[in-house]
């Protein structure tokens, strides 16, 4: 007789679903459908932007019309109809809101359901266990609120949405926007430059260690929209910041586009730690629907001894095209890239990094773990480039792939270019399957095959997961297990 409790049934049901796939019913304000110069002007006007930014957007837009999509990735991307989407969607009546308490309760409820702490009162009142993390919540095209701003301001940290930064700190924005990712960098970044609607802005002043983790949570809710956010993080001399990014979207049959640009600037002795848990809707088991995730992320280690570290856990999206990169310009600067990419069903991922060594004694480290299941295809693509001036540069790269099932593919495409005789570069890659012995060992001890798989995969990803901040690490481990549901048997 079976002895299954209700709890077990609920657990199984909950993990078999894409948890974040619900939709929030809320009145939205849209721009007209389609993309043209007027839409770009409209977005700029909605945001009350200065002329220079509108000019920049228009220039990007005119470039975008001439550019072609990058073709080199190992991805099958159906033709995208850029005119069949809304480029601006915001919850109605956003303008009048002064504090988070006034935000539509349905939006707050959405974030609560997703487990995102938007209430700072609890912490301020000293409720035990309330996480101290400042959050910028972006709902479709607009930021609905940023927590802990006052507390951050005490130490001089600026953390707000990029739209507010354009109004309140125009000089900083103007100086840095597009300085790491020029608008003509690639077609997706170019589109973002023309139509970006919101995102986060962070400035850590000289010598300040940001007192708490900063995070942005992106939620795509409205139908037929794309999300184009832009994040700009500047760490001045000797500053430190750890920034987290999370993203989810409702389950829909049509594909939605997400084309973000993230720029990081680290001055002398500064350190930026950027972590992402990407859980956009991946599409259903037949490969229907899901998000196209075309993201340009790049950081520059401008100053001496500066450091940029990217950690990413990529489990969502129908198609992922993403290469968080570091330009190691300052002498003795360091770049790190830790990545776990999991694809299941019909997902496709082409992700990796670029480490451009320009300064002397620069170091970089790449650890990439790729897991493919179902009928998915996953590629690690990474470039390590040593310029002539990068004396004594050092790189270590390790890429491991795990295949689960015989219908998926895992690929490794590293590019290693050295123009300096004193540079030392190492690259290692392996591809294997989950050892039957390990699964057998677990099963013998009463652990089911699926649980054993989750356990082994988590072990495989450990090197990367342990680089995530605490709160995210737990979340990511759970995600790793969920993403592989149904890939056994």
């Amino acid at each position, binding site marked *: 007789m079976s002895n299954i409790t209700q709890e077990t049934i609920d657990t199984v049901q909950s993990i078999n679903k894409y948890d974040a796939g619900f939709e929030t019913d809320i009145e939205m304000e849209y721009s007209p459908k389609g993309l043209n110069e007027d839409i770009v002007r409209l977005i700029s006007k909605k945001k009350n932007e200065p002329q220079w930014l509108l000019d920049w957007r228009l220039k990007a837009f005119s470039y975008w019309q001439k550019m072609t999509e990058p073709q080199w990735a190992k991805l099958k991307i159906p033709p995208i109809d850029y005119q069949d989407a809304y480029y601006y969607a915001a919850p109605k009546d956003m303008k009048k809101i002064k504090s988070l308490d006034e935000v539509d309760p349905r939006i707050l409820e959405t974030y609560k359901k997703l487990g995102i702490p938007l209430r700072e009162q609890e912490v301020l009142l000293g409720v035990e266990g309330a996480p101290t993390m400042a959050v910028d919540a972006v709902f479709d095209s607009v930021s609905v609120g940023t927590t802990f701003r006052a507390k951050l301001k005490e130490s001089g940290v600026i953390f707000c949405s990029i739209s507010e930064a354009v109004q309140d700190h125009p000089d900083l924005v103007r100086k840095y926007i597009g300085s790491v990712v020029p608008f003509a960098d690639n077609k997706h970044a170019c589109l973002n430059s023309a139509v970006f609607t919101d995102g986060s802005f962070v400035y850590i002043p000289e010598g300040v260690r940001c007192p708490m983790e900063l995070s942005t949570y992106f939620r795509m809710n409205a139908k037929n929209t794309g999300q184009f956010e832009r994040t700009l993080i500047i760490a001045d001399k000797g500053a430190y910041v750890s920034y987290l990014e999370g993203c989810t979207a409702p389950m829909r049959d049509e594909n939605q586009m997400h084309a973000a640009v993230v720029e990081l600037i680290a001055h002398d002795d500064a350190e930026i730690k950027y972590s992402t848990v990407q859980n956009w809707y991946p599409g259903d088991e037949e490969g229907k629907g899901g998000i196209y995730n075309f993201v340009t992320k790049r950081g520059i280690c401008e100053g001496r001894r500066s450091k940029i570290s990217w950690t990413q856990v990529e489990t969502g999206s129908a198609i992922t095209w993403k290469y968080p990169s570091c330009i190691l310009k300052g002498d003795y600067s360091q770049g790190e890239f830790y990545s776990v990419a999991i694809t299941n069903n019909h997902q496709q991922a082409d992700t990796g990094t670029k480490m451009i060594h320009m300064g002397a004694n620069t170091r970089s480290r790449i650890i990439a773990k790729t897991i493919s299941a179902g009928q998915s295809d996953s590629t690690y693509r990474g470039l390590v480039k040593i310029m002539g001036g990068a004396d004594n540069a050092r790189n270590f790269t390790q890429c491991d792939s795990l295949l689960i099932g015989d219908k998926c593919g895992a690929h*490794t495409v590293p590019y290693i270019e*050295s123009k300096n005789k004193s540079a030392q570069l190492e690259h290692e890659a392996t591809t294997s399957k989950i050892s039957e012995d390990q699964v057998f060992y677990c099963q013998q001890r009463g652990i089911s095959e699926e649980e054993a798989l989750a356990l082994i995969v988590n072990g495989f990803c450990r090197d990367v997961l342990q680089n995530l901040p605490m709160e995210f690490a737990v979340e990511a481990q759970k995600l790793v297990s969920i993403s592989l549901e149904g890939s056994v048997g």
Partner: protein
Amino acid sequence: MSFAFENIPSVKSERWKYSNLQRALKDLSLTPARLGWDGNVSLLSPHAPGAMEYGDTQLWDLNASQTKDIKFITSNDIIDVSAKDGQSLSPRLIIDVKAGENITIIENHNGDGVYWKNAVVQINIEENAIFNHYRTIEESEKGVNTLFTHVKIAKGASYNAFTMVLGDGFVRNQIHAEIMGEGAHCGLAGVNLLASTQHADTTITIEHQAPHGTSNQTYKSVLTDKAHGVFQGKVHVHKVAQKTDGYQLSNALILSPQAEMDTKPELEIYADDVKCSHGATTGKLDDDPLFYMRARGIPEPVARALLIEAFCAQALECIADDVFAQTMREEIAKWLTSRA
């Protein structure tokens, strides 16, 4: 020239990213010539089998349309592919190794003055046969050699190739191996000793299309002066090729500030029960062993030469023929002395 420039692969093509053949050929004035091999042109297979999907068959096609030199080989042989000043050659070698046989072929590629050799070597190895394929490539300063080798390996058969690149000029050594039958083996090794403004590109694709296949790649490059080395190696494991064991190693040693090494080792895997890995390093001579030897009275040039010889040794281990292996050791020693 007798060919249209648009038929020459450009650096825009992913597989030619690091080798600018159009630039190498740009100002050469060449006339089509012959080596004087006979052979029946009608027996020629025009297309590179299986290579189509990589979209890199331009030079094969060009060879097929131009060739007047065809040679069929079925037993041990030594072949010279030498070009004279001003020649444009399109030789084709067709090697057929019958079931159960064990043969060795040595190819010597060289030339004088300005020339372009666009060679295709087509190999078919039948069941349980062994083919040892040794090559030395020593081109002139203005010589261009594009060498496209395609090999099919049947069940239980084994292909062992070693290539030594010396000399000068522009070399593209492209190998496309297909493991067609169960338990077949493909072993590729090479030493590239590159100097002056030499450009040497080793581009490999190994396709595992049957279960229990093994493949091994061991390449060592030493670069000095303004030399440019390229290594692109791809192991493609098809869905059916379960229990494949593939390994790929590329080590490069850069001795001068102006030399450049570009490495792109690729794994493309569609079967889950496989063991595939690759390793790639680029670096300089280790200071510690150098110091150790000098502390024991070994002069620096000798110590350096010893270290470089040791660096290359692993690739030489793949040569089954002792005499040829010894010749290669001597070639390395000679190269090192001339540069000390």
